[in-house]
């Protein structure tokens, strides 16, 4: 293949979903061999849709795709693979109960290769690009980062020269991200063409050669990374000038609203999901919780709200022991949870019901008599729509039809209306774009200023460092440190998340708590 040609060139790609949603509107894109192109855009700007057309998941309604200078029609993932395009999806496409090697073998052409031969080939690729992989390990035993390595290996094993990574760093610690970037740089040096989708501007600046920006399904601009900066990119992305700093108002702290001591919880797999966790949550502060996914964050939230029983330890709300109280009682004591599981509609809201009915879930028992009085709930729904600027056709539209940011506003708004003493949010801005994220940060800060004790489980360390007063780090269910957000760096947090700093635990705690 001629290395001077574009690896991929998209001309005027258009894709509609239904009659209303125009996901891609005459998008142009060029990708060269030996470069890393960052694809940037808000949620719903059409990045993933565009990439799914390159990987054969969707078909474009109009426009043409050229690979190595010739026009191609990608009708299925098989076509895409044949053209040398390999996609590393945001949600890993791996079979949990298979070993790494079996996952790599799925769908490969020709006869099934002998395990020894496959292992040899995997080792060869691993060394060449600096991947670390155990071919016989089962996927369900792997960390997120290991799973991603398997995904990358799948693509390289098939000899792909064009790689597309959809938000690969969203689930990684900073150290793991650096390792991934080292691998990507090696690939670039070997002449591979790479597209990386990410929301994180600092990563765009550090890894990419060029940046293509999409806004509302249109290609806005393609710029050399060296010629731009984070602020300019954000402005291209949202279409107007923005202030990227997160507010952290100073407030008066009220000691000991929530005291957790020696909390231990059994996980579903028989291991300890939480192991001797102790901390205090003060009124008027935001305590961040950092940790690699599955370090016990979910269990922590569910234990405090009474959803999960605990083995030992105590949880006290203003000197009142919560053990033995039902979630309903705890809620009425003023502990409110806005939990955002993977799909956001899992635990918080009922997707097929409108905003009014979702409000009723929290208030129905307060009206006397056998019949439901919908008026107060409707008024509350209208108030929230107005106050939080929730975009919805009406109060009765099923909430699952709303965008992620609006769903989160409904959920958080409802919890805040209950005037809690303790507000627990988990992954409050997961999957939200910049505008929605900042709206949520403002809501949390507003609660903090009212004197509410906020526990905020997060994944973006930059956000945690900017928004929270203190940050508690969890690693395998243990607290590896509680640190002051103003004086801590991302690298320190990353080390604590992997447990590498456990030896320093007592020092950090002594210094900052």
């Amino acid at each position: 293949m001629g290395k001077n040609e574009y690896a991929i060139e998209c001309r005027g790609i258009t894709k509609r979903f239904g009659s209303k949603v125009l996901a891609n509107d005459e998008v142009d894109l060029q990708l060269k061999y030996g470069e890393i192109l960052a694809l940037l855009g808000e949620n719903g700007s059409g990045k993933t849709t565009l990439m799914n057309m390159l990987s054969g998941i969707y078909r474009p309604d109009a426009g043409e795709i050229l690979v190595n200078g010739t026009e191609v029609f990608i009708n299925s993932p098989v076509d895409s693979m044949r053209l040398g395009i390999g996609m590393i999806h945001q949600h890993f496409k791996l079979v949990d109960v298979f070993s790494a090697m079996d996952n790599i073998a799925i769908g490969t052409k020709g006869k099934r290769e002998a395990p020894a031969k496959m292992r040899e080939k995997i080792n060869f690729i691993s060394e060449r690009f600096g991947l670390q992989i155990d071919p016989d390990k089962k996927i369900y035993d792997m960390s997120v980062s290991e799973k991603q390595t398997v995904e990358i290996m799948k693509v390289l094993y098939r000899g792909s020269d064009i790689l597309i990574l959809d938000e690969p760093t969203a689930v990684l610690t900073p150290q793991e991200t650096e390792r991934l970037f080292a691998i990507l740089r090696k690939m670039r040096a070997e002449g591979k063409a790479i597209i990386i989708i990410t929301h994180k501007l600092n990563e765009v600046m550090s890894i990419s050669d060029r940046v293509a920006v999409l806004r509302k399904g249109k290609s806005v601009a393609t710029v050399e990374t060296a010629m731009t900066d984070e602020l300019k990119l954000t402005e291209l992305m949202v279409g107007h000038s923005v202030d990227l700093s997160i507010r952290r108002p100073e407030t008066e702290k009220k000691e000991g609203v929530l005291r957790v001591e020696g909390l231990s919880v059994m996980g579903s797999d028989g291991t300890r999901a939480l192991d001797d966790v102790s901390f205090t949550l003060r009124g008027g502060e935001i305590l961040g919780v950092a940790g690699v996914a599955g370090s016990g964050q979910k269990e922590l939230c569910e234990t405090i709200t009474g959803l999960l029983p605990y083995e030992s330890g105590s949880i006290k709300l203003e000197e009142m022991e919560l053990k033995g109280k039902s979630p309903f009682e705890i809620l009425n004591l003023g502990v409110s949870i806005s939990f955002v599981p993977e799909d956001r509609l899992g635990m918080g809201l009922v997707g097929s019901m409108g905003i009014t009915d979702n409000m009723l879930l929290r208030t129905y028992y307060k009206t006397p008599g056998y019949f439901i009085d919908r008026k107060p709930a409707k008024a509350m729904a209208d108030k929230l729509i107005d106050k939080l600027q929730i975009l919805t056709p009406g109060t009765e539209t099923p909430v699952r039809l709303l965008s992620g940011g609006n769903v989160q506003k409904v959920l958080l708004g409802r919890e805040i209306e209950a005037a809690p003493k303790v507000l627990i949010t988990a992954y409050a801005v997961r999957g939200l774009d910049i505008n929605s994220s900042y709206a949520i940060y403002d809501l949390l800060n507003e609660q903090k200023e009212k004197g509410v004790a906020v526990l905020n489980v997060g994944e973006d360390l930059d956000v945690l460092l900017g928004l929270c007063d203190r940050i508690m780090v969890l690693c395998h269910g243990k607290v590896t440190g509680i640190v002051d957000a103003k004086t801590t760096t991302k690298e320190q947090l990353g080390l604590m998340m992997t447990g590498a700093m456990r030896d320093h635990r007592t020092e950090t705690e002594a210094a900052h708590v």
Partner: protein
Amino acid sequence: MSFMIRFIVAAVVAGTPLLFGTLGEIMNERVGHLNLGVEGMMSLGAVAGFMVGYRTDNFALALIAAFAAGALGALIYAIVTVTFMANHTVAGLTLTIFGIGLTNVIGFHYLGMSESGTLKLPEHITQQMRAVHITGLSDVPVIGPLLFQYNPFVYVGIVIAVLLALFYNFTKAGLNVRAIGENPQAADAAGVHVLAWKYVNIVIGGGICGIGGAFTIMITNGGVWISDCVGGLGWIAVALVIFATWKPVNAIWGSFVFGAMRILKYYVNKEIIHIPDAFYDMLPFLVTAVILVLVSARQVRDKAQPAACGTNYFREDR
């Protein structure tokens, strides 16, 4: 000694229709389709096998008809669930009701036409379904009757189970098929033809169920037609799939254990242990219920139901 041998042989024979039903359902669930139509597909196989045998006096044609009828039932199910993405439970239950109903209607029709009021397969066919006799092997004491004196169905069932096990564990296509049942998105992204493989497995699985149905009328009932000849075996097969942890080889001994439970009442001395027959009839279903509870409490990832079982796959799902 000879009593034990007779008991074991009877258990194997009684378990064989279950083996076919279980293998068919394993093929369905391995591609992610919880097919509750086993009872219906077995019924269709029974009536097609019987009627074709009755008319043509040809054992091979009867078997082919049984397979084809089961496969046809499965094809309807596949079209409804794979292509039109209907709910698996509803589609499967409907197939069962349809299969049993159609079978009985055809049976009544033929019974009405017969002069004696009964329907029996011709002697020529029942001859061929008799236990095999391999000179030398079948006459060896103990081993002979235990291993080499069954009717041809038993061996066919075991061979299918072993072939399926080899397919799933040692071939690339088998790996791809397992991947479909676990995570169709992953299989599709890796270039596996998800929908085509689903069709192939569901239809062949239905055919295997059909042969199991033919067994119930040809062997269990000795070639005499009765209504509802499958009599709930399809439901036990669905549970046996779980008991076998979705592995064809486990299905072999699992179905023989359940076969033993079905014939236990004939082998218990009524003078010593006096329990009503109804208890023995209930036993397989009772054990099935207990197993379902135990299995759902056990959490071993490798022995669990294929993760995508019961869900439909649509590539452009958002």
